[in-house]
């Protein structure tokens, strides 16, 4: 089945019942965002674990594509299990921190150290990939007026860092004065929501600060950049036409799907609302069309009736 857009189809279509069944039959690969799609914080979205295990039972390939870099993949597996997604294996999880490590090791083939602005979620993935890194622990008494720089730093990686300080910003911008030093960001999400709807600053804020300091643009690994899809494709044989990207954030998940040539589905259990999707669809700017989902569901639990046969 050709991509929905190729049929001249305006998008943003709320679907249910047999339409979902047809879609599930037509696609072999299901890519899910996590926060706001399959869970909210520490609570699974009602029906989501059954959806995932039903897809797997029906022989579908399921992947999880998340910008959340606050934990390493092996910890994510524990969370999946804890929340009732008992069939999920580490190999199915693609986080922006894991993919950043893959980029550094396999694409950039970085020879030297990486200066990291990030927490355990980022550092652990670099460790797993065998990439040497430094944070700012090496000079705990350093101040902005007098701080030591490590030698042999060939890349700066910015991710979510709740221990972010001005000193880290200053050091990173020193390293990035060398145009040969790579500048990578796990993602550029400006904020992310917690369970109760409150929000916290995201990696995007720290990346923006460093871009202003250096006058350079970061290479973004996470959604909406297509790199995470390239990671999946390099490990599994994936046909974009057979994929469905399911997410809750128009500017990351839907744009990611559009950038990779995938059909997209917005679920309304997270950040973005139907109204916003419709505004993008009806706007005059052609660039806004990339934010428009092909399909919309209230919750991924709407898939469940399709499995009853």
């Amino acid at each position: 089945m050709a991509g929905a857009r190729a049929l001249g189809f305006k998008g943003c279509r709320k679907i249910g019942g047999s339409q979902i069944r047809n879609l599930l039959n037509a696609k072999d690969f299901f890519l899910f965002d996590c926060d706001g799609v399959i869970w909210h914080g520490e609570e699974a979205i009602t029906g989501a674990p059954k959806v995932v295990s039903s897809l797997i039972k029906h022989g579908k390939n399921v992947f999880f594509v998340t910008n959340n870099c606050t934990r390493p993949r092996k910890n994510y597996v524990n969370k999946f299990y804890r929340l009732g997604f008992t069939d999920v294996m580490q190999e199915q999880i693609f986080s922006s921190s894991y993919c950043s490590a893959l980029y550094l090791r396999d694409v950039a083939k970085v020879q030297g150290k990486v200066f990291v602005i990030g927490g355990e979620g980022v550092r652990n993935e670099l460790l797993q990939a065998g990439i040497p890194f430094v944070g700012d622990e090496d000079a705990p008494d350093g101040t902005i007026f007098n701080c030591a720089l490590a030698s042999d730093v060939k890349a700066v990686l910015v991710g979510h860092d709740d221990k972010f300080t001005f000193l880290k910003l200053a050091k990173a911008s020193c390293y990035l004065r060398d145009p040969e030093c790579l500048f990578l960001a796990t993602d550029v999400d400006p904020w992310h929501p917690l369970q109760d709807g409150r929000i916290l600053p995201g990696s995007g804020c720290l990346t923006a600060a460093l871009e202003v300091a250096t006058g350079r643009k970061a290479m973004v690994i996470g959604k909406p950049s297509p790199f995470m899809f390239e990671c999946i494709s390099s490990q599994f044989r994936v046909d974009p036409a057979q994929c469905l990207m399911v997410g809750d954030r128009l500017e990351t998940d839907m744009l990611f799907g559009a950038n990779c040539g995938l059909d997209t589905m917005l679920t309304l259990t997270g950040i973005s609302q139907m109204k916003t999707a419709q505004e993008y669809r009806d706007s005059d700017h052609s660039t806004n069309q990339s934010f428009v989902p092909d399909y919309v569901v209230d919750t991924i639990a709407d898939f469940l009736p399709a499995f009853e046969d």
Partner: protein
Amino acid sequence: MAVSKCTRLNGPLIKQMLDSVDSVLFDCDGVIWRGDQAIPGAPDVINLLKKNGKKVFFVTNNSTKTRKMYADKMALMGFNATEDEVFGTAYCSAMYLKHVSRLQGKVYLIGSNAMRQELEKVGIQQTGVGPDPISGVQIDWANVPLDPEVKAVVVGFDEHFSYMKLNRALQYLNNPDCLLVGTNTDTRLPLEGGKAVPGTGCILKAVETAAQRQAQTVGKPNHFMYDCVASQFGLDRTRCLMVGDRLDTDILLGSNCGLKTLLTLTGVSTVADAEAHQESGCPKRLGMVPDYYVESIAELLPALQG
């Protein structure tokens, strides 16, 4: 209509230009000093201008010192200047909040002690200055206790900037009625001793990104700093000269306010930069082309001494 611009100021043109102005506004970093070293000849230039009956003011985006701290620094370096001639963004932000925003309430401050002092001087209380290390977990950060009297988030240079401060600012700014004010958007801050670190612009950008809104900025090139000087000293803008080293702040401020502008080459911008703006033909960029330029303000000395 070709207005002659970006003219090398020398010879009789210098005296002609000086005679056409009554007031001179100087940027500081890269114009009259670099760090803690005066630009050679700069103290004499300032002192002679005053002797010749010109009014002299100092207009800087640097928010790390109060007017008094600047005046003390100037005295040490041989500049004959008084506190009320200095307009830094710590002072001007306090003035802005008091007289333009007419703030009734407190400020959550990401900034220096100098900013705190200038706010207190105009009777505005603040919370937030100093180190603010993270503790607890995500849900705690989202639920940090907020002072209900805070009505504005103000951002200046802060060496203690951290994720926790960024978070607090975001929580306050979730209220759409809470103001967001920044001192300036400069990307680098010059330090004593000649080094430079990331500037306030970086910190402000982080806060704007989290809150998904733009700050009101007080510093150059916004005209507010000129308005501050003019309202206190009754200036005639047609007889006013702005001297600076940055095209995108100093010269643009001058253009925006209808002042004559002089670029000095002892700081950030070059003649090539100015010519590129001039040749672009882009209306937005033409404001960054200075009327005149000199290698250093010391070149004004012969005309002042004669």
